[in-house]
């Protein structure tokens, strides 16, 4: 029997949601694939057609959240009229909202990724790519509209933004304030900074400055080192000094 694409997608999401439930309850280590598939009302073996490992379920849900964030942002009719700062703020805020029902699960994602960064990094690549595409799209639109200047190191920016969002999520997981008010405040204020950095093209300028410093000063010193080594007289003098007792 051929299963339609739609049904397949529904089963996939059901499995992810079941994984969130089971992993939230028992922790990643103790959760079993069997229990997840039963919770999702899927035959024991079928789960492996969708997710070959438990890790893939863990990170599959991250991708699912990122996808939901994108759908949500696309459903806001006047989203393109927001300022870039507000768009990024909305993006991160939406991410928090989407993670809210699975906050315990996210804690598991963080601790697993912390324990096995290589696996995490590999399995998160799809999510990161989607995040990068979303961020780059906003940035490009903003540059086209003349809202912010060309950003010379655009490849770097999506990665920085990803790290920023990860830091916000980490802060949120530790936030014990009522209704996560502290996170709301942090996000509000930090997105202002992010916005200002982009408007000023600061990341690019900073890197420009570093490379300028590097070229003019560090390389200069490299040259003088080269000269040092190349200068036989000094080398000789040094040897002579060091070999004083000879």
């Amino acid at each position, binding site marked *: 029997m051929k299963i339609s694409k739609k049904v397949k997608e529904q089963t996939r999401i059901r499995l992810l949601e079941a994984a969130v439930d089971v992993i939230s309850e028992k922790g990643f280590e103790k959760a079993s694939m069997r229990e997840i598939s039963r919770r999702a009302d899927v035959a024991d073996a079928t789960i492996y057609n969708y997710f070959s490992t438990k890790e893939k379920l863990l990170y599959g849900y991250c991708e699912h959240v990122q996808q939901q964030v994108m759908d949500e942002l696309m459903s*806001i009719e006047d989203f393109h009229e927001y300022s870039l700062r507000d768009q990024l*703020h*909305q993006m991160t805020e939406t991410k928090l909202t989407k993670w809210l029902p699975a906050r315990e699960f996210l804690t598991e994602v963080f601790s697993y990724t912390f324990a096995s960064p290589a696996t995490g990094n590999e399995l998160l690549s799809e999510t990161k790519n989607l995040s990068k595409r979303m961020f780059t799209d906003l940035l490009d639109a903003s540059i086209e509209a003349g809202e912010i200047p060309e950003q010379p190191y655009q490849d770097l920016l999506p990665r920085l933004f990803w790290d920023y969002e990860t830091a916000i999520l980490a802060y949120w997981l530790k936030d014990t304030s009522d209704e996560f008010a502290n996170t*709301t405040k942090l996000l*509000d204020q930090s997105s202002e900074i992010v916005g200002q950095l982009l408007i000023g093209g600061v990341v690019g300028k900073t890197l420009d400055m570093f490379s300028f410093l590097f070229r003019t000063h560090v390389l200069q010193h490299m040259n003088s080192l080269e000269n040092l080594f190349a200068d036989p007289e000094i080398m000789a003098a040094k040897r002579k000094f060091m070999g004083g007792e000879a």
Partner: protein
Amino acid sequence: MSTVPRSQLARSSVVGSTAVKIGLGKLKTKAKRPFLSHENSEAADQEQLNSEAELLFKAITQLRGTAVKLAQFLGMETELLPERVRKELAKSYHQVPPLNRVLVGKVIENEFGSRPDKLFKCFDPEAIAAASLGQVHQAELDNGTSVAVKIQYPGIHQTIESDFKLLRKIAPQGINLLPKSTRPTKEVLDNAITEVESRLQEETNYLLEAENTQWFANNLQIDGIQVPCVYENYCSNRVITTELLTGVHIDQWLETKPSQAVRNQAAQRLQSLFRNSIIKHGRIHADPNPGNYLFKPDGRVGLIDFGCIKTFSNQFVEHLPSLLASICNGDIDHTLKTYESIGMVISTDLNSDMRDSLAEFTHWIAHPFMTESFDFKENNTYTNQAHELMQRLNSMPTVEKIQEDLIFFERTSYGLFKIFERLEATVDLRTGWNLPAL
């Protein structure tokens, strides 16, 4: 009066007692410093004040929401604060950083389950006004009604908590900026801060405010005074939706050069509102901040922001007219008796100095009631005279307990008189109080 929620009574009493305590604190500090040369200490205070006030209050204005509310609260006790400090605080009204559309959307979605553009037919993401603990947006309901949506800063209760932690740390230094004679003790200060904090936390309950607004809309029927009606389906703990009133704030209105007659009419309406609220309902809108009145070109006035409501005791409402009457008669002994009948405790052994000061004070109160209609343009220093009189009264242990209702009555009428002075209006203050004939 029986319809008043109990928490409302409790809430108002907080402010009243704070005012009393601050007042008493003034007396205590004065009593403790008899040997300090008055001039020297004042000069030193002023110098310190100039150099530090700005710095300190810049820090305070960073505190979103709390600062505005605190400024309002301290603004009630204007006579207590030096001019410079008051100016810095007044600025904070306008310096609240606005919420961006993301946070506005977040609050609406949290409260009603859908985004503002889905909940309303249209919703303007730009705020039209700052409110004490939030900001106001214009929107349109599905049936086309224009509404004002007041949105509370998300997490403001949390902010209030942390702001007050900070405030407790900086307040002792702030207090040093006050002239020595008006500096409250640490204990008084701590109590005041705690009480303002709990009152603020209560004010974050927008449902209560919505209830109050609706109560006034139902009960106040005064020609030319408009109270917005409340749209309950769009109200929650964090959001209040009311009818959108048109009109402008007093300064803008005065710029349009309304005629003397129209200004008089507007002022007279505010006066009727105040008197009727007390006599008929025993309950007043107790926040006479000019920002709470919206003036229309024809002199009609809209009343907004029902966050601060005061309900008077039956005893107070009953005795108030006779108190005013005896003040107008200039009979100091009878006045003292009436003061006591509403619950004031006044020192029994008044010497002649104290009697004189008291007489002068009651004379000041009586002054605008002693004419058919009082011209606030001619008497534009009337409210400012209160400063010196109050200071003189405070320097004597005449009054041991100020009746709380009276504080609210005086404060609200003082605020109204300030507005009348700005309007340069002529107002009949006598009608309705059953005062003795002129």
